[in-house]
């Protein structure tokens, strides 16, 4: 025990003396929260919409105006030519083109229905889908207005009789930032737990200091404990910083119990550090840690459900996610912070991550003893 304390003292001394490590520990959470939360958003704003109005009637003008009034669209006059507008789309100067055909108003009056043509740049499928959804909502609103004002019931479809009132639970304003902040915190904790601890372990190997350590009475478990605890503490510290920033700066609600969240995070860190330790046994310098780490982390992050829902992933991906620790943490942190879930609600995840922690750490320590 005394030995571990001396090791910890040495580790913290080195960490606070390391010019690279300190910014990573203290600046990383700030940068991630302040930049990524804003940048990693799926909200679409300022969609460049080119309107080709071939009708030039009062109703076609009102339709264009409805788009101008929306904060999501920046409307540009596309003149009369569909081809010209399409050229703008091709050059990337427009995201969407709406073509209102000649005789739009007349057909609306007479038939009660008319079509407008949409051309959407769908390079980014998600963005295209979202823009289209926004546009459809505006069109629907326009249609309702028209029905009310003209009293024309010719085009009345069965849906307009039913009014849908939406209420979104746990994130009533569909604030994307509040959804992202816990996700970013998962990244933060993971990077510190996995990368920094693996880098720190490998540094001893790279500089050869491990050779001098190995001839001392320090036991391997003491050495590993001394190496991992600092980053365990730092990661939990950074989680607190992240939560505070989210709470005070972004009005993120923290509904659930913090002790449960920290308990889960502590277990999660054991898993992640086990992976870090495992990586450190397979490589001989810090550069290789980065390569190996990136491989794991990119796969884990993209499958974790940080941007997209894991439930919509194919069955095999959901199976793979059983061994993806990030997926557990991602789900749990959002449940606790946004939904107010308690220990009972995340009991299953807690047990699984506990088993995972034991497995990952034992495997890593076993391999470490064998190799080093």
């Amino acid at each position, binding site marked *: 025990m005394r*030995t571990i304390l001396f090791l910890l003292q040495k580790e913290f001394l080195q960490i606070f003396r*390391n010019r690279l490590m300190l910014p990573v520990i203290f600046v990383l959470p700030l940068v991630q929260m302040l930049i990524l939360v804003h940048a990693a958003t799926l909200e679409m704003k300022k969609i460049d919409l080119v309107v080709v109005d071939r009708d030039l009637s009062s109703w076609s003008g009102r339709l264009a105006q409805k788009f101008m009034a929306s904060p999501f669209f920046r409307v540009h006059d596309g003149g009369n030519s569909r081809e010209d507008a399409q050229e703008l789309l091709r050059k990337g100067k427009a995201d969407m083109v709406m073509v209102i055909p000649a005789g739009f108003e007349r057909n609306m009056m007479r038939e009660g229905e008319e079509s407008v043509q949409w051309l959407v740049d769908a390079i980014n499928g998600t963005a295209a889908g979202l823009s289209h959804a926004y546009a459809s909502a505006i069109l629907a609103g326009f249609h309702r207005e028209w029905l009310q004002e003209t009293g024309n019931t010719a085009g009345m479809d069965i849906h307009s009789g039913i009014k849908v009132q939406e209420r979104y639970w746990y994130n009533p304003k569909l604030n994307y930032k509040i959804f992202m902040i816990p996700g970013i915190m998962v990244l933060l904790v993971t990077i510190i737990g996995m990368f920094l601890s693996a880098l720190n372990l490998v540094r001893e190997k790279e*500089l*050869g*200091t491990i*050779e*001098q350590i190995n*001839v*001392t*009475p320090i036991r391997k478990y003491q050495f590993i404990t001394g190496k991992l605890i600092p980053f365990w503490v730092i990661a939990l510290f950074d989680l607190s910083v992240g939560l505070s920033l989210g709470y005070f700066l972004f009005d993120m609600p923290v509904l659930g119990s913090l002790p449960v969240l920290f308990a889960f995070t502590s277990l999660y860190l054991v898993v992640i550090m086990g992976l870090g330790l495992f990586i450190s046994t397979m490589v001989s310098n810090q550069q290789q840690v980065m390569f190996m780490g990136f491989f794991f982390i990119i796969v884990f992050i993209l499958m974790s459900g940080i941007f997209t829902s894991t439930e919509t992933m194919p069955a095999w991906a959901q199976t793979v996610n059983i061994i993806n620790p990030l997926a557990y943490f991602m789900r749990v942190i959002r449940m606790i912070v946004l939904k107010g879930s308690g220990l009972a609600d995340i009991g299953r995840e807690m047990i699984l991550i506990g088993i995972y922690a034991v497995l990952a750490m034992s495997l890593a320590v076993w391999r470490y003893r064998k190799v080093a």
Partner: protein
Amino acid sequence: MEFLEVIRVSRSFGPVNALKEVSFSVNRGELFGLIGPDGAGKTTLFRIIASLFLPDEGKILVKGYNVVKDYKQVRRITGYMPGRFSLYHDLTVEENLSFYATVFGTTLKDSAAYIHRVYSPLKPFRKRLAGKLSGGMKQKLALSCALIHRPEFLLLDEPTTGVDAVSRKEFWEMLEELRNMGVTILVSTPYMDEAGQCDRVALIDHGKLLQTGSPAEIVHNFSAKLYAIRGRNLYALLGRLRMSPEVKYAFMFGREIHLVFYRVPGRPARWLENLSGSPQGTFSIEPLDPGMEDCFVELMGENHPVDGKENI
């Protein structure tokens, strides 16, 4: 009394036999040198003695403790200084020493007298980061750290490599003092001229121990008669000498050629004139008392007959 016993130790890395049945022993209180060129297997042997590697075969006893089974006892009485500087660059001199003192359950104060001779030149720099020290000071710090737990046995892997001549001399003086304090020291070096500082030496090459004995004994055992050739443009002559059937081997030694015959010609000076085609007085040839390096070359030649003739 034998303090260290190395008994038929072998170790290979894949197809490379780093050590082949190496056996020798070091007496208590002896300064013992392990001498051999780079890649001879010195570091591998040291790592096995320090209980960092396992031998494939054979066993090693330090004060009767087996380095594999009783590695804990061995580590407690052994101070190991690796060939590469292995202390923390980002800790100061004092922090490094205190750290190693505490992990051995002692303090810098308790060991002060023991390491005084080595540590005192470092004292003015005790607040300096170890990474910012000069080569000679790093070496002194490493030795201090190896001595911090007052070991009976010191294992120094090429401590003088990459250190200037003055520091080297100083370092050997320190080793002598430690030996006089009763510490048993095993030190490896690629420098033949350092062999004379040891009580006994072992010559090692390609993982095989060639000979063991005091420096005087090894020189005494030199079997062949050695000649030295002096003169100008020796490199051209060296080629001719090596082609000659009478010559066992010849090699450059500073500004001389050292030469051993299979069968010494009746009049060596005359023979040399004929061989070189140069007039009398261009080169001189005289018998010579062998040094450690000559012995080593001779022994290496026996170990690798082909290398001995072609590559020296």
